């Protein structure tokens, strides 16, 4: 396999948890950076935490889009599912837990239980929704997931079960843990940052393992050619369903973290425009790369933040992302990661046979990002 040292730079997170000498080094550097950031300005910690959450959201979404070719416009449903699971447990069971385990550690217990309930809720929804949705493909899949997302949105804002507090959403207050005289707030900036780093890195590692497992390899094959995969004895629909559930679960974890960070579980999370955030981040970053959604989320949030420093631009920030999205799809379908790799190839002359055209200029006008080598997702730990 071609050298992965330089490619590793854009795969900071994949590398951070991988073996190998150079990966270890990059992992250390990354870890150091993450630790140092905890002492940075408060808002920067917040912003980076936000980035991690959105990155996980996009990564979960892309498990389905990038790895089986199904574009969901309804993943907001699972993002919200995680958030509401946590919020409802905090609101309704927080006092109960305080009685059971004592008020000192109750907030932590409640948070953990809430997160698990959120996750369970998401999986419980994803199992039937996924089972139905994977019956369809392409534009029809996008439409049915959009519809499922909007059913969720409708139910959350109309709240027939009296659980979701309608349009206002549910306030999420994580509370303080008191143990042996020491007290810390779970929602405090650094604490929550540390918690998010751990959870997100673990989740990314989990996704990375899935992607590089036999299952993940089969999924990539399905993306490339579903009928060919079926002809090899692969139950395409079943794989897509499983991927759908895993994808939803990852997004659900992101949703749990989102609720704690935003301090509110709001119905907007279910809306298709939230689902679109994952699409935007993934497309900008590059859907066929493992790190694509992560890089895309980074670009999305930091450009967004940069724009927000200039209120006049800020008022029209979506304009930039609209233009960026169109530009990327039209001219650079491999996204930012593809661009970085191409740049690396140009700079270091690490092109490989047949790669002279670069990923955006496949033959016959079919610009397939997959046509580039060095695709992060396709490399296992062999090298």
């Amino acid at each position, binding site marked *: *396999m071609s050298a992965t040292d330089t490619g590793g730079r854009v795969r900071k997170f994949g590398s951070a948890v991988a073996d190998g000498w150079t990966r270890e080094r990059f992992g250390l550097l990354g870890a150091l950076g993450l630790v140092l950031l905890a002492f940075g300005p408060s808002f920067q910690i917040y912003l980076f935490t936000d980035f991690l959450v959105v990155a996980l959201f996009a990564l979960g979404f892309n498990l389905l889009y990038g790895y089986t070719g199904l574009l969901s416009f309804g993943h907001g449903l699972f993002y919200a599912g995680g958030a509401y699971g946590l919020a409802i447990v905090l609101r309704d069971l927080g006092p109960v837990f305080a009685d059971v385990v004592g008020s000192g550690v109750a907030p932590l217990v409640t948070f953990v239980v809430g997160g698990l309930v959120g996750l369970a809720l998401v999986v419980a929804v994803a199992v039937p929704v996924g089972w139905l949705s994977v019956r369809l493909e392409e534009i029809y899949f996008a439409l049915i997931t959009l519809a499922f997302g909007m059913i969720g949105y409708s139910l959350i804002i109309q709240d027939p079960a009296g659980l979701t507090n309608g349009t206002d959403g549910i306030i999420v207050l994580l509370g303080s843990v008191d143990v042996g005289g020491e007290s810390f707030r779970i929602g405090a900036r650094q604490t929550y940052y540390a918690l998010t780093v751990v959870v997100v890195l673990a989740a990314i590692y989990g996704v990375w*393992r*899935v992607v*590089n*497992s*036999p*299952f*993940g*390899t*089969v999924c*990539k*094959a399905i*993306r*490339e*050619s579903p*009928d*060919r*995969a*079926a*002809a*090899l*004895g*692969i*139950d*395409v629909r079943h*794989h897509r369903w*499983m991927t759908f559930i*895993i994808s939803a679960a990852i997004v659900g974890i992101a949703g749990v973290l989102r609720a704690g960070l935003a301090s509110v579980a709001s119905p907007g999370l279910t809306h298709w425009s939230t689902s679109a955030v994952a699409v935007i981040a993934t497309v900008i970053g590059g859907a*066929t790369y493992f790190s694509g959604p992560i890089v895309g989320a980074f670009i999305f949030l930091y450009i967004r933040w940069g724009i927000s420093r200039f209120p006049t631009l800020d008022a029209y920030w979506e304009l930039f992302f609209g233009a960026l999205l169109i530009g990327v799809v039209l001219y650079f379908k491999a996204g930012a990661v593809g661009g970085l790799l191409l740049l690396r190839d140009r700079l270091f002359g690490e092109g490989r*046979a*047949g*790669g002279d055209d670069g990923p955006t200029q*496949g033959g016959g006008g079919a610009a*397939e990002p*997959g*046509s580039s*080598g060095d*695709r992060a997702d*396709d490399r*296992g*730990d*062999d090298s």
Partner: protein
Amino acid sequence: MTTVLKTESLRKQFGELTAVDDVSIEIDDGDITSIIGPNGAGKTTFYNLLTGVLQPTAGSIWLRSGDGATDDGGGLREITDAEPHEVAQAGLSRSYQITNIFEGLTVRENVRVARISHERTRLDFRSRATGDEAIEADIEELLELTGLTDIADTPCDTLSHGEKRTVEIALALAIEPDVFLMDEPTAGMNPTEVTEIVSLIRELDADLDATFVVTEHNMDVVTDISDRIVVLAEGSILADGTPDDVLTDERVTEAYLGSDSV
């Protein structure tokens, strides 16, 4: 000779058009059977019926069962309504006329997908895709067998057409089929590549205990490799027999050359 694949009165109707009309055929173990016929004779539809891509309008399809579970006396199991992946799992594998491989993956990864599928480890979420030594060894063996070792780590979208056709065959072989359907294995190849693929098919036939069903336009290839030739015309079997018998059959010549007297 035992029968490994059998169709009984297979028929497929598209609206008013009968693409496959009452085809009953028995394929014998170890043979290379070529199915030929003019354009529109129903060859591709026949393949699609066999592999579960299309459901027949009438008739049935039977395949020798690897696991011994059969529902007729002859060691065959009915796969008429099976889905494509079930057909493949039952032991029927195909290569495509228009190259259909996993373009974005390397040659090795292509074969790995097939092996993973065959070894039923495809729903394993946790281990490394490359971690199963037995599978990796199988992959090496298959690459060796098909002569793809040198380009094993090349992404398929950068291969030549001939190399892709070979990957196509490697994929189909990797699931160790009892019956191997090849849809025009030489389509779109230059003469050198054709020669190579023919010798590959011969080698495979010699090395493996598999049964081949081949459609092919290139008559050199057909006469070269076939134990038996079946001629389809307008959806029905026109002739069936050894190459010598079939190729001298007047009806066959007419079907190909066309004649007012038909």
